[in-house]
């Protein structure tokens, strides 16, 4: 449904913007109907940049994002409004997503005046009520309240409800649960799973591997703007192959295994494999991705499981930041 084709983003950096910084390069993956794709990366990996490009909040430097056959970059003017009918985002901090001096349900009112100006008030109210119930909120508990009167989880669910009012195909969820408490976190996560059952495609951006593992069908691991490993979630987590993925998984605090134990399990070398699996498959693939080359970026190691180059720009992976 939504497909990212070798997208790259470079930012101008330096005092006079004289240098280019490639925040994202050659990122390709698809999001299908009813699928949650988790985009996992540490800070500075470019995961939010990818989300922003999908939402058309920033321009794409190279490559294309295609939604149902239409190149998203070409969508302009009145069509853009139609685009946002099907693609919406929810962000990390629910408290700064609302204007504190207005009531929280103002976000619904703005949506009506923009997208449904002709809808009768009663019909609109029914629609809101249905959307609120879909995100397990009681309408009379949240309508007419100010943001500070609601909890973070409630505000976050209100934003998801707002997205539901549109005929949404893709939801970009950028770290939407990292600000929430452990006890409410899982409710918002389960809500995403229900949306997925309605056929929505969700790009779930997170730094928390256990959350990504819980919810998603497909996992994309991003490091410094480059995909290092991707594929079906069970394969990526069950058989982590890239050294960076293995390091990440061994660092996640787990509830029933101590770190030393996980590390010992992952330290065992993969049988019969040494060196970079990507360059074993494509020995000639260019080592300098400038965003314009046609070299492959990922090598297939099993069905629905791909890895990128193991070389990590001559710096060794260490847990010491």
């Amino acid at each position, binding site marked *: 449904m939504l497909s990212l084709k070798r997208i790259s983003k470079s930012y101008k950096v330096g005092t006079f913007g004289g240098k280019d910084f490639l925040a994202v390069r050659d990122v390709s993956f698809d999001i299908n109907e009813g699928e949650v794709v988790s985009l996992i990366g*540490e*800070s500075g990996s470019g995961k939010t940049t990818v989300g922003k490009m999908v939402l058309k909040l920033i321009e794409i430097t190279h490559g294309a994002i295609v939604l149902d056959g239409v190149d998203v970059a070409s969508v302009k003017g009145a069509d853009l409004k139609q685009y946002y009918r099907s693609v919406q985002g929810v962000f990390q901090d629910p408290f700064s997503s609302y204007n504190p001096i207005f009531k929280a349900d103002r976000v619904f009112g703005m949506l009506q005046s923009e997208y449904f100006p002709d809808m009768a008030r009663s019909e609109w109210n029914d629609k809101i009520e249905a959307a609120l119930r879909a995100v397990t909120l009681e309408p009379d508990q949240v309508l007419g309240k100010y943001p500070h009167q609601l*909890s973070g*989880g409630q505000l976050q669910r209100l934003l998801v409800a707002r997205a539901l009012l549109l005929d949404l195909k893709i939801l970009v969820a950028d770290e939407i649960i990292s600000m929430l*408490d*452990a*006890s*409410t*976190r*899982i*409710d918002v*996560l*389960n809500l995403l*799973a229900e949306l997925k059952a309605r056929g929505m495609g969700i790009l779930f951006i997170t*730094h*928390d*591997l*256990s*959350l990504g*593992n*819980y*919810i998603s069908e497909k996992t994309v691991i991003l490091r410094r703007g480059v995909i290092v490993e991707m594929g079906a*979630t*069970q394969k990526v*987590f069950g058989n982590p192959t890239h050294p960076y993925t293995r*390091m*990440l*998984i061994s*660092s*996640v*605090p*787990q*509830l*029933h295994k*101590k*770190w030393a134990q996980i590390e010992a399990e992952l330290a065992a070398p993969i049988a019969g494999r040494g060196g970079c699996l990507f360059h074993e498959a494509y020995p000639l693939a260019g080592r300098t991705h400038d965003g314009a080359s046609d070299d492959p970026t990922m090598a297939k190691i099993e069905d629905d499981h791909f890895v990128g180059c193991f070389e990590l720009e001559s710096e060794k992976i260490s*847990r*010491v*930041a």
Partner: protein
Amino acid sequence: MSLQVTDLKVYYRTLAGDVRALDGATFSIGDGEIMGLAGESGCGKSTLGNSLIRLDGRMKYVGGNVNLDGADVPIWDKQAMIPFRFREVSVVPQYAMSAMNPTRKIGLMVRELIESRGMAFRDINVELERRIDVVGLDQSVLKRYPIELSGGMKQRMVMVISTLLNPSLLIADEITSALDVSTQRAVAETLVSFRDHGFVKSMMVITHDVSILYQIADSILIMYAGKLAEKASTTTIIQRALHPYTQMLVASLPEVGVRYADKKLTGIPGSPPSLLTPPTGCRFRARCPLAFAKCAEEPPFVEVEPDHSVACWKVAGPNA
């Protein structure tokens, strides 16, 4: 027994009345023990941590006792606390990025800090350099400004500074929350190594992330709405907790390996009560699936087996 806290009460003064953020806490931390303190936001865990070192202007000491290594800690008296802070009780704050003076090179800042306590920097210098090695930083950090360090490096530098005088108790408040997973692990393991090296005698690690505590803590104290809910060894809390709140909190954590399709986790319905007018009886009653008539009375925090205390009528039995 390193730290003994008895019936400590600290309220926040607001125009609407007192917010009972910490309403009677009794527990102890042994020598060499790393105690984790966990709970939802607004349950009073940071209030407990902060009250042991510094009561800020909004906080009001209401009652209770704090005893550290046999000496009473006068937490209600700002002046009398000065000899305790940094020397006996020290804190690693959550935001290491703003914990250091941005206008000073780190070495100079540490020197000024030590000298402000009436000590000679010369006496500390060797130890400072040794500890920088222990946490895996380069000696050159002392010649750099805080802005030149990454988040994890800053966090570890702040940990070195906080523990320079070998405090008896170290309070680490959400120190891993703002960090990436790999850095998080390095910082958490550094905490353990500080205890193993004897830089600090005992530690209180405050976090909302129970899985971090499972990795590093010896015991875990769970708080709910200003009250203690359960305290036991780490394995007991994770594997056979008795308080329904602890059970629900642990069960709501997604783990690597647990997937929605296989096992749907559930959160805890409802939200914590307002501490301005806390409900009478058990404060978890409204959200508790096991609540019964007896819960209208406040459950005592009692030891149900050695080193395992719970505040719940269902566990302690109606005759407790």
